[in-house]
């Protein structure tokens, strides 16, 4: 089906490597990003996707909790944060309020609770541990996936501890794994331009490595569609691949589609649908050692996510309660999908939906609270 098209696209050598399961190089990555032949790149990515995950598409019943929006990092791509002095917009959920949010969905068999927030210098070390304990107390069987590498750094600082020690404490309090956010783009140029106050790529990777070495798994992300350049993205993917060779701790990679609205970068146009597909496909091809590529529908739309199931993605994220970080730019409302809708959309795209828990174990019957 694709042989002539692959030749016309000048990608025969890469296709041959993909066939043989050979690792792709930096130059291959750049060429894949720059190829206009989206179906060729997609078909190659699909080959890898089916090798890793067959016809299965994963989804999860999850709940998002954003415990605070107060943040001292002032990242230019963020519309969520409130500066520490912004009394009007800033909020912190108390441990009880978080527990209440978890309790509110006890009638839904949620298996994953995703907790992230701003870097709020006022929160004490004990708050984070109490948060984990409280969530686990209400919903002991759900996997607690909490705190980006950036927050982990802050938590360790608040506790005057090393990262490893803080991670151990958090794990003892109920933390099961780490989300992949805060990686942004592993480029010092972009770091200086957009998120200078935050941990840089070396630090992000170091914290992730520490977590993995302690046996905590994590996800990884790439925020695209702002000022980053193609070689920077390829470099980002290769550095994650290297980390994964070393630790094997990355469970899924999630390309995040930038939302400029209401950020300091709102003069930039949003990423296009074709770019969304390309990011998924190139990631699938370059990250040969990461088991899952997630298309996060909240950020790239459910339509693109459904399409992406043929361009390298095997995971759609999930039903998502209470996501606050970006909003549906058109309706300005919260975004949720029912499990039935998600399953129908996956099945319609010719894939087999499998409900997973946070560690990609299939959920067989209804998960308990």
């Amino acid at each position, binding site marked *: *089906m*694709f042989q002539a*098209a692959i030749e016309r696209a000048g990608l025969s050598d890469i296709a041959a490597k993909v066939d043989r399961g050979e690792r792709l190089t930096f130059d291959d990555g750049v060429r894949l990003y720059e190829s*206009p032949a*989206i*179906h*060729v790149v*997609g*078909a190659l990515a*699909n080959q890898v996707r089916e090798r890793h995950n067959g016809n299965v598409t994963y989804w999860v019943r999850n709940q998002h909790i954003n415990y605070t929006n107060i943040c001292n990092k002032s990242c230019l791509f963020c519309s969520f944060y409130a500066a520490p002095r912004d009394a009007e917009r800033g909020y912190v959920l108390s441990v009880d309020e978080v527990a209440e949010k978890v309790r509110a969905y006890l009638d839904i068999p949620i298996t994953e609770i995703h907790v992230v927030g701003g870097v709020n210098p006022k929160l004490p070390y004990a708050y984070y541990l109490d948060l984990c304990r409280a969530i686990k107390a209400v919903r002991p069987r759900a996997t607690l996936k909490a705190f980006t590498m950036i927050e982990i750094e802050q938590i360790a600082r608040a506790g005057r501890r090393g990262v490893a020690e803080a991670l151990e404490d958090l794990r003892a309090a109920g933390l099961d794994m780490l989300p992949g956010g805060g990686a942004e783009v592993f480029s010092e140029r972009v770091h200086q331009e957009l998120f200078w106050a935050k941990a840089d790529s070396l630090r992000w990777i170091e914290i992730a490595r520490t977590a993995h070495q302690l046996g905590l798994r994590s996800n990884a992300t790439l925020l695209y569609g702002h000022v980053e350049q193609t070689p920077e993205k390829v470099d980002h993917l290769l550095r994650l691949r290297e980390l994964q060779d070393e630790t094997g701790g990355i469970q899924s990679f999630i390309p995040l589609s930038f939302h400029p609205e209401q950020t300091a970068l709102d003069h930039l*146009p949003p990423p*296009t*649908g*074709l*770019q*969304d*597909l390309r990011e998924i496909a190139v990631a699938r091809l370059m990250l040969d050692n990461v088991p899952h590529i997630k298309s996060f529908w909240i950020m*790239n*739309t*459910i*339509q*693109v996510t*459904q*399409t992406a199931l*043929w*361009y390298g993605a095997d995971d759609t994220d999930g039903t998502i309660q209470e996501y606050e970080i970006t909003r549906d730019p*058109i*309706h300005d409302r919260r975004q949720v999908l029912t499990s039935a809708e998600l399953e129908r*959309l996956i099945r*319609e*795209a*010719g*894939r087999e939906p499998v409900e997973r828990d946070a560690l990609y174990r299939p959920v067989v019957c209804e998960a308990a609270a």
Partner: protein
Amino acid sequence: MSAIADIAAKVRAGERLSADDGRRLFAHPNLTELGQLAHEVRLRRNPEPVVTYVVGRNINYTNVCWVQCSFCAFYRLPSDTSGEAYTLDEAAIYQKIDELVGVGDGAGQVELLLQGGLNPKLKIDWYEGLFERITARYPQAWLHALSVTEIVYIAKLSKLSVRETIARLHAAGLGSIPGAGAEILDDRVRQVIAPHKETTDEWLECMRTAHELGLRSSATMMYGSTDTTEERLQHLLRLRALQDETGGFTAFIPWSFQPDDTPLGEQLGYARASGFDYLRTVAVSRLLLDNFDHLQASWVTQGPKLAQIALHFGVDDFGSTMLEENVVSAAGTSYTECMPLAEMRRLIEDAGFTPRRRTTLYEPVEELAAA
């Protein structure tokens, strides 16, 4: 080996696909394969790396309509007492045209998509007068106006044949006819969603007559309500057969039913056809409609991301800049704000094509100042 390798071979040899091929394509989920084939056909038919668009606007001259289609949230009945029923007077219409002419460079052709409800007060002389005055006043405006449904009704109301009606409207300035009102060209579906509209045969016959009189038209398909895949397939095959006969269709435009605030939407639980369904439908349409020159994206119903992806699924035209849209907006489409021309051009360029402004009949328009 792909499950559609034999169909791919036919497509690549330029052979016509059968109904059964269409059935298999509609059941084939691999989007990269469908997209690849559709894009190859698109590049064969329109080899230039160009995506066209037209500068235009909708003017919905009246929302008074007695037909009560269950998928429509736009109409008000002739007996309406809510104060929401309207018919625009000529001054209001001219004002809207002035706004449109101001968007272009003032010179190139602009498209006026003039459509409305079936208003029992408006007979042919109302349209004739309006069309004559618009074309005299705005030589650069192209009247891409009415629909089969309106034409059939104007004929009935004015006690004329459809042929006479079209001929008179043509003489008064009608340039071409939008393909709207086709919905699904299958009488079972029409009976459910638009029982008072013309039948499938009447729709096709009206288009045949228009084409015979030298008027060209587009063709649409509104899928995703109660239609089955088989009914969509029959729709495409009926269009293909008429196109073999007349060659009068300029383009095909599929779009999905927008359920909000409509009785049909309520009946169907407000289910919306998906993005996957759109891309597959576009690709299969490109493969089956081998005698259509152009496929148009529907960014109003699909949004900018999907509409742009469709440029690699057989679509070669981005449609109208559409300064104003009232009908699907009333039914809750998410994308009603007009798309700035600069954004449309960016999406086209990002997809690897050069944007080019065109006339309604797909002739290039020299764009002096790209907005």
